[in-house]
């Protein structure tokens, strides 16, 4: 049987725990963020389009001659 190479385990503080926390965060926070945004994107354009049409509603001063 071949002996295992003498490679130590990665340092938990530097590699294992940060990676674990990041992967859990991807699962529970970051991917839900993307999923919520995608789900909402289906409805959002219709919602925005329903808003009242906007017209310029400004008074004008200091006229310049129209060329």
């Amino acid at each position: 049987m071949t002996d295992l190479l003498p490679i130590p385990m990665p340092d938990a503080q530097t590699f294992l725990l940060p990676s674990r926390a990041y992967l859990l965060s991807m699962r529970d926070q970051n991917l839900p963020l993307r999923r919520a945004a995608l789900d909402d994107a289906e409805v959002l354009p219709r919602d925005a389009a329903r808003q009242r049409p906007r017209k310029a509603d400004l008074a004008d001063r200091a006229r310049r001659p129209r060329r």
Partner: protein
Amino acid sequence: LQLKVEIQDADPGYVDEKVGAELYVHLRAVPAIVDFRRAAILRAFALHRECDADDECRRGALALLVLQRAMLAVEDLGGLLYALDESPSFERLISHRLDDISALFARLFADPTLTPTLYRLPTPQALADEPGLSDEQRQALKHLASITLMRVDAQLAIVRPFWDSLHDEAKKTMHGLAFVAGRYAVEPPGAGMITRALQRDHVRPFAVPLTTRVDRLGQHVNTEVGAVALTEADVGRFRTAGLAACDATEVLVGGRLRGLETNHAYTVPKTYLDQLAPAHRAALEPLFDA
């Protein structure tokens, strides 16, 4: 691919001289974009508010979505202000960097003449020189312009600190999602060196943005660890800043478009007409009705 643009609602020569046809076309689209941004912020805020209070990670996710959408509205405003500050406006609109927006926001607060100039609000002299106005109308327009400037300044005062403190973090919600949920940084077994770099006693929920830089000379990878507070109060502030940016953009673009389409150097929005004294309001109504 080449697009031909025919300007029908304004004097093409005047538009070309002032901002160029490309920027004018963009300005015409901005009111619809603002509606979209506003709806997006409000929808994300509602999703966050309706989320299960015990689901800390999901609440954090939805808080980051509010942050992302609010910051996009602020970036739209900053980009437009930067573009309109100098020629060629359209090139500036499509090529600006985040630092350009930061510098522009800083200038708005260092130079009190810049905001009224960018918003094309009339100077007292311009109002005095304008023919065909009664004294009462002149006075009322002066008040309305002052109120508008005060409102815009207040909106910018909300927008700027939001931009300065969180625009890098908001970018991370768009690219790479380099965030650790605060929960996994503080609950056992923790996140190792990330946890050690954090200040203690963060109010939850919060997220830990990770900024990694490669030091090629030293052959190191350095990761900076920060914290973005995502409590209900923070999310309320994101919403407020995003909506303030929408309002400020609407006044900016409404005035610019109206000026371009009627060959006017200055415009006074009627957005805040209801805040004038009744007598002044009555004096101006014929102008706006016309």
